[in-house]
């Protein structure tokens, strides 16, 4: 991909946000980082990301709810979504998939391969 991949990244934990940010820095991504689902909804109105990268457990509004709300925005109806979560019991993963997630990245993730993981999930989707 020639252009940078625009990612709307929602994560409530500041440390993890920082790690992810650093991990993706310089790997050909453009990150829009939000600290909560609500902030994501506000921000997304005038953003057109290529991928949604959502934490699942967040105070206030969890990842799946955030996704549902984001989907109500016409320009985000088909945007691919990846969940990033520590809740990776098999039935949980299946549930994310059934919500249309193109992939699930389990926490803790490997920062050195995070960029690659995201890129390959997106490519799979487009293939």
């Amino acid at each position, binding site marked *: 991909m020639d252009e940078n991949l625009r990612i709307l990244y929602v994560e409530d934990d500041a440390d993890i946000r920082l790690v992810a940010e650093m991990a993706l820095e310089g790997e050909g991504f453009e990150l829009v980082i939000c600290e909560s689902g609500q902030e994501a909804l506000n921000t997304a109105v005038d953003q057109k990301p290529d991928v949604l990268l959502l934490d699942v457990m967040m105070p206030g509004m969890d990842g799946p709810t955030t996704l549902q709300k984001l989907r109500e925005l016409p320009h985000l109806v088909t945007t691919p979504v990846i969940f990033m979560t520590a809740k990776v019991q098999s039935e949980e993963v299946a549930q994310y998939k*059934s919500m249309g997630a193109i992939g699930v990245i389990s926490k803790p993730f490997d920062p050195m391969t995070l960029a690659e993981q995201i890129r390959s999930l997106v490519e799979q989707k487009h293939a």
Partner: protein
Amino acid sequence: MGGDNHDADYLTISTIMKKPEIPTNEAVRHQSLCELAILDTAAEARFDRITRVAQRHFNVPIALVSLVDSERQWFKSRQGLDASETPRDISFCGHAILADDIFYIANTLEDPRFADNPLVMGGPKIRFYAGAPLHAPDGQRIGTLCIIDDKPRTFSQDELTVLRDLADAVEAELERGHLLLAETALADNEARIRAIVDMVLDGIITIDSYGRVQTFNPAAERIFGYVATEVVGHNVNMLMPAPYVEEHDSYLQNYLATGDKKVIGIGREVTGQRKDGSTFPMELAVSEMKVNGDRMFTGIVRDITERKRIESNLRSSENRMRAVIDTVVDGIITIKDTGMIQTANPATASIFGYDIDEMLGHNVNMLMPEPYHNAHDGYLHNYLTTGDKKVIGIGREVTGLRKDGSTFPMELAVSEMEVNGERMFTGIVRDITERKRLDLLKSEFVSTVSHELRTPLTSIRGALGLVLGKSAESLPNSVRQMLKMAERNSERLTLLINDILDLEKIESGRLEFELAELDLVALARRAVEDSEGYAHQHQVQLCLQTNLTTAPVRGDTHRLLQVFANLISNAVKYSPQDGTVEILVTSNDGGFRVAVCDHGPGIPAAFRSRIFQRFAQADSSDTREKGGTGLGLSISQAIIERHEGRIGYQSEEGEGTVFHFDLPAVEAVIKEGAGNERCIRVLICEDNADVASILAEMLKPEGMVSDIAATAEAARTLLAKHAYRLLLLDLTLPDADGLQFLRELRSVAATVDLPVIVVSGRAEEGRIAFNGDAMAVVDWLQKPLELERLKRALHEVLRHNYRPCILHVEDDPDIIQITQVLLEETAELSHVATVRGAREMLAAQNFDLVILDLGLADGSGLELLDELKGGCPVVIFSAQIPDREITEQVTAALTKSMTSNEQLLETINKILRG
């Protein structure tokens, strides 16, 4: 006398002779004779004395005691005659027994009855005969005492009296013999009875009407410990303990006075008392008899101590069991093979909210909600006829139905037994509502805790990873070592959390399995690919070897991959550098074996007994070097066992280790229902065979034939083979995600419109995920399934998704276009312009309706009416007005110029709706 070899004279004369008549009561008479048992016995002095006296007294040459047998007269005693018998038909005695008086012939030559008798004509030349009838004790005349002379003579009254007296003496002798005989018989009989009485196991005691013991048999002696002489003559109440002792006499008195029977009868249980004073339970049967006019009683006594002991043991064991069953918290019910509830314990009543009486005699399906309610009889029937166990087994989780209509999760264990040759089933029911609630809490707790643990770990691992990944070069070596240690341990901690989660599930029995049919070869390939990276890190080669193309087993993909990963990573860990790990898949005794072989140091013998234990590692000093939590094999074992498989290993120290697991093979994944081309064919895509067959049963009454596919792949095969009217789809399929499969179906032309009803435990979730997605899903049905809702959905499908086919026979293109526009909403239209074309179409395809124009290029549409008769409805739509005769043959007849579009549409809709 009168043998058979007589001369011609005798023969001539014998035609005149009078034979003695046979008495009318001959049979009875003969019977009386036989009962004396005297015929053909030896001569006896007591009779010979009498005949000798007669011979001398009357001064005759011959005196006989003659007994008239059926064909002869036989002489018990004879004087002056050698023959012991003569034929009855030439006998004089045969005549003499016809009357009670003495029969005498003074001169035989003057009597036409005897003049030519061979005994008269030949020896002993009888001229005179006198015979006094002899009576048996019962009065029958059985013979005579007779005297014979060879000269005629007359007989005075006095002589007649003497002969009669002598005959009476003979009769007395006969009677005495008879009595002797009877006495002998009686003595024999008594000996027999005595033998029986002495031999029987039951005590037999006779008493007189005063209660005194008359007889006391050996069995009675054994039972009571007395010898007969100690008892006979004493009151029978010596054999009874108080209070019967006093009562017995009054019983007897009472009975003798009033006939009120307190004792007489069969099989009363009473208490007996032995000589030593001990008492015992006995069964007593008393009967009454009369002997010589005296009333006697016979008592038959059986010691039932042993029987009572067994009964009492049984009773107390039954009481114990009953107490257990009545107080146990689990519901226990027994049902007959008809499904009828036979017993239910109090816990069952409280679990289901019924009184016990409300359940007994009812079908056990009253305790089940749909669809089990209806399916249960089928299960039972199926089991009884085929032995296919759908219900029997331990610990299935099912749904129960309370009296108030509410449902609850319960655990059900059913076992089968035979009682008195009848097949019965016992069900043990446990309400697991609370357990389910706790499970949910626990599951949520574990999920939350794992999240809380992972969140900080994510930052730690991430931060370390970034430092080491991006700026390792700029760090001093010692710092880099420390950071690497921290990173390694953060990874270990992650693995540990994952394993602890699994372990928690194993311990709570909640390790969830989504069992489905899958290919073990493909799974092994995938597992090897997944582990390639890890092996590479350790510089170990992975090598998959198999001769099999597929190895169908039933299993949970994710869990089996976990086992593969565990065994492969163990093998890699313990392989020498540049070593090889072989993964073999072979078929093995009704199943398949996966073996993972390494060429490492082998398992130390001392460690082998603990190998599957938790947190077990061969060498704890190795731990850091080898990594791992020590939980892997324990988890793998639990997973394989839940797959009804076995896990094991062989190891040789210094040679290497082979870990293997065996899984049973499964049968085909496709079941096709029987049905012809015209039936409503439905595809059920569901990997749980039980659920699939319940669904198929539910569809049957709707007139649908079901094919069952256990996998998405099988469904694809079947979809290519048959035209289905409906697909029932489970979302959790072994080889595909149900929703993705649904998307796939929608992207293929053949199935783009196929009506789908989703039946799944994940139906709600799927519905939400698909919200707004324009895919024709008729309904999303959540398991457990509501039968009514399924039925509604089915009817929806049948109503909306069936497009009737109409053949329009018409040559005017404008009319064709109008009807096409009018009807395209409701039906599939086919057009044809000629009679011949119509014939071809009708032969090739079934139509639900034919619209017929009459004036066609190659003839009249009427020509088709005969062929269509009895087939589909016909609407004539023509410019001509057909004859009444014609209109009576069709469903409707419309005239083009006189019919509005609405009328045409309405008519056709009405017919199609039927």
